[in-house]
């Protein structure tokens, strides 16, 4: 097994057949027997329990969910509890926000502050896509410990990587599209439906990657957003398929859906590029002592020179980078609760800009996130369960709140040290009094 491989040799495999005949292969945690329900479809008699599905529409902006463009998502939002002020958390990237959803804790406790970090031990910039990169327990394993079954249906290779074998049932994304390294939403939804249909976990965590992947590449993003719009329509159809399936299977009345994005998306014109490498090109002494982990709308900067020169060197880098017109702000990672993995400085770009490092040509894609302009996300609780109430809340829900909210539905106690997130129980009839 190569370093970073998300899978072990102890897994069992389960081949299911989705509607239409496509096969879906799930891996099953060692020691977990394949349940009897794997042989049959969900039946109405099972509705006494609560099933919880977290659907992440990766990279979706809250204003993109409209009755005209995404009618199924809009209807779910209108019928449930909406949190219009919801936000992603630093760094506004896919991996850290999915980790925050499943752990309920900040990156300084989970070890996962960004997609890409500079690995000081290995001396390379790499994605945080290994199971041991995640140092905190997740809903996927904590629910299992309490006797519930969990599932992960993650469309992106690196998400499958970091969450590894934590769920009872795992779909390994397939087919992976070249370049984007993600499975199309139709395949992801086939897998989710097959998993729910055949093994019926109590909780499933699903990532739908198309809206994000198409958004990154949409060269019309600053204006007409043609490709993006098509992806939104398709993803909406896929969500609709899932709802229809739950209804047809008689499981809708026992289902709670938490639908959100991990971050939103912002588009830049080609000229609006910030390269810290280029900014430091006149100061080769400094450049030689700085490693850069580029995260689209955010650059993580790491001092690699002698510790004694660190404070002065970091201060110089900070001043030079902050002077760029496209740079919005520079933060100390600890102030954003990002932990040591995030390095010495976090630079954010303004709306309509992007970072491109280590070279100015490294990041040619127009759609980016990671910077504060991409914080607003859709976040709503829906479903046919009588526990779900209809309403709109002023609370600023965050990705961090998913774990405590789901935990509350299952009566799960907080992890050691408590959650950093808040259970959004205002969405539930049996929730606590609204804060």
């Amino acid at each position, binding site marked *: 097994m190569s370093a970073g491989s998300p899978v072990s040799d102890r897994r069992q495999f389960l081949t299911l057949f989705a509607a239409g005949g496509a096969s879906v292969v799930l891996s099953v945690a060692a020691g977990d027997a394949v349940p009897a329900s794997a042989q049959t479809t969900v039946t109405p008699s099972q509705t006494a329990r609560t099933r919880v599905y977290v659907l992440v529409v990766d990279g979706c902006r*809250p*204003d993109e969910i409209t009755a005209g463009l995404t009618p199924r998502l809009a209807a779910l939002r209108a019928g449930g509890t*909406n949190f*219009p*002020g919801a*936000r992603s958390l630093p760094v506004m990237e896919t991996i850290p926000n999915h980790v925050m959803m499943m752990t309920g804790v900040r990156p300084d406790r989970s070890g996962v502050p960004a997609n890409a970090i500079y690995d000081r031990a290995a001396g390379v910039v790499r994605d945080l896509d290994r199971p041991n990169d995640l140092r905190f327990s997740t809903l996927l394993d904590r629910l299992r410990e309490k006797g519930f079954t969990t599932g992960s249906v993650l469309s992106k290779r690196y998400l499958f990587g970091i969450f590894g074998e934590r769920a009872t049932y795992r779909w390994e994304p397939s087919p992976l599209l070249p370049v984007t390294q993600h499975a199309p939403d139709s395949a992801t939804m086939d897998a989710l439906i097959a998993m729910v249909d055949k093994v019926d976990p109590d909780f499933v965590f699903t990532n739908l990657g198309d809206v994000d992947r198409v958004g990154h590449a949409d060269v019309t993003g*600053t*204006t*007409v*957003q043609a490709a993006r719009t098509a992806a939104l329509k398709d993803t909406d159809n896929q969500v609709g398929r899932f709802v229809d399936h739950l209804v047809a299977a008689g499981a809708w009345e026992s289902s709670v859906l938490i639908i959100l994005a991990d971050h*939103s998306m912002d588009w830049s014109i080609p000229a609006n590029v910030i390269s810290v490498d280029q900014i430091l090109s006149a100061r080769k002494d400094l450049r030689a002592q700085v490693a850069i982990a580029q995260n689209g709308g955010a650059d993580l900067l790491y001092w690699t020179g002698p510790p004694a020169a660190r404070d002065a060197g970091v201060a110089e880098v900070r001043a030079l980078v902050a002077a760029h017109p496209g740079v*919005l702000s520079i933060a100390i990672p600890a102030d954003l609760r990002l932990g040591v993995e995030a390095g010495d400085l976090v630079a954010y770009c*303004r*709306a*309509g800009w992007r970072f491109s490092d280590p070279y100015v040509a490294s990041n040619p894609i127009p759609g980016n996130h990671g*910077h*504060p*302009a*991409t*914080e*607003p996300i859709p976040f709503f609780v829906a479903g046919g369960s009588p526990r779900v109430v209809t*309403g*709109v*809340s*002023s*609370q*600023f829900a965050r990705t961090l709140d998913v774990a405590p909210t789901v935990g509350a539905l299952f009566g799960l106690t907080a992890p050691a040290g408590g959650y950093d997130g808040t259970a959004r129980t*205002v969405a539930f009839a049996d929730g606590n009094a*609204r*804060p």
Partner: protein
Amino acid sequence: MGALRLEGMSLFNRRDLIRTAGVLAFAGVTTTTARSQPAEAATPPGAAVPGFLHGVASGDPLPSSVLLWTRITPTPGAVPGSGFGPDVTVNWEVAEDSGFLRMADRGSVRTGPARDHTVKVVPGGLRPGTTYWYRFIVAGATSSTGRTRTAPAAGTAVDRLRMGVVSCANWQAGYFSAYRYLADRGDLDVVLHLGDYLYEYGPGEYQARDVVVRPHDPAVEMTTLSHYRRRHAQYKTDLDLQALHAVVPFVVTWDDHEFANDAWSGGAENHTEGPEGVWTDRKASSQRAYSEWMPVRFEPGGHIYRRLEFGALASISMLDLRTYRSQQASSIVDPAIGSPARTLTGDAQMTWLLDGFSSQQTQWKLIGNPVMIAPVRFPSTLSAQEVGAVQQLLGSTTIDGVPYNVDQWDGYTADRSRVISHLRDNAITDAVFLTGDIHSGWACDVPADPLTYPTNGASVAAELVCTSVTSDNLDDILGTQPRTASVAVEEAFKGANPHVKYLDFDSHGFSVLEVTPGALRMDWYVLSERTSRAATSTLSTSWQVAAGTQSVSRVL
């Protein structure tokens, strides 16, 4: 005119009783359906003394306190602005019931000619989100009973907040029926007054077209402390305004006419240095009279820009866009419009505003914004007469053949860019500018970039502009019938400015803003005739901003 004065007083007392009864009967319920009776002619005070002849008011509600205001006339000679009359002690009471059986707080305060016999007190220890009754007492006189309400506790869920929104009430241009209709609703949490609460002009200088419906007192342009005090006092004799102040707390800021037309930090269009005194003195006098006569947490030497919060639902940041602003641009060689050296807000207020957007834990970020922030480009199809009339309305100037709105944010584009960039770069959601000043009704998006807005509709905020209570607008300036010549001008403006979704250049009236977690909605009510005390009120249109959209859409 003693007889009239007496008649006026008796009417005032009768109406006051009716108001109080109405408060008791309809407290906490939706507006009464009974048709409100127009106010009778206001009468200069002075007949029954000691007396509280200018009503009672409350303002700036916080979760545990609210400011209470009145003015005592202790002796016949202690008329406003005179400097005459003794110091007196005024007792005040706040209770949880209108019968003052469940007393919440009480106290006494001294006042006298030094502050024109006005009284401002801030009872503390009140409960959040609670209705209170209050009154003032001196030996021989008790004020009418006022009703007010504290703000909800910080961070608590609030299902609904309903505000009256008004601006631009020129006494000489008509009657304050808008205030009467708001007072009669009985369902408001607060009234937001966006400025031009009173006007500086003398009779004949600015009225309803050419008709002085009721003359200002004193009968000159106000320039001295005595003038400003007398003018404030005159406005506070308006029974419709008194009725509104008595039933709901105000949150106010000033625009220019509280000082003089098109005021800026060093002067005003309607100020002549020398003959009209020194501007710094005039400004100090107007601010002092304002602090004495308005129910606002502002005292001379402080700043009026401030932020109030209503639980987790909304905050209101009230701006001061006169005290710190650079002079309006007047020519193309006066480089001006986009110069970062010029400011509308001043640095300290700008920092406070921007930091507030980022740090607030309230959903809706409302901005009490005395002048319009959305860019307004003049259409090229207007006649010279139409251009001139709209310029008069918007405070615009033609520079090198192009009209610029030099008195609005359009005239200070560097400051506007700072606000818009901050909103966009930090993805601030649910920011809504509530604006007055220009005597017309508007619903607009605030474009992230006006050049790309027609293609992508990207908006960083919404702007809702209430019309004037009485002050002249386009049909008045053009001398045409309402909703005739103006309609084509409005369409031309909307065509040239796609982010302007609604525009009414003609009507007078008031707005009601309803804020809920799901959406914010403004209703524009228009009056049948500002010069008639018996004006009727009609709901004209409704626009909303759905949460998270930063964009206006039509409801009705």
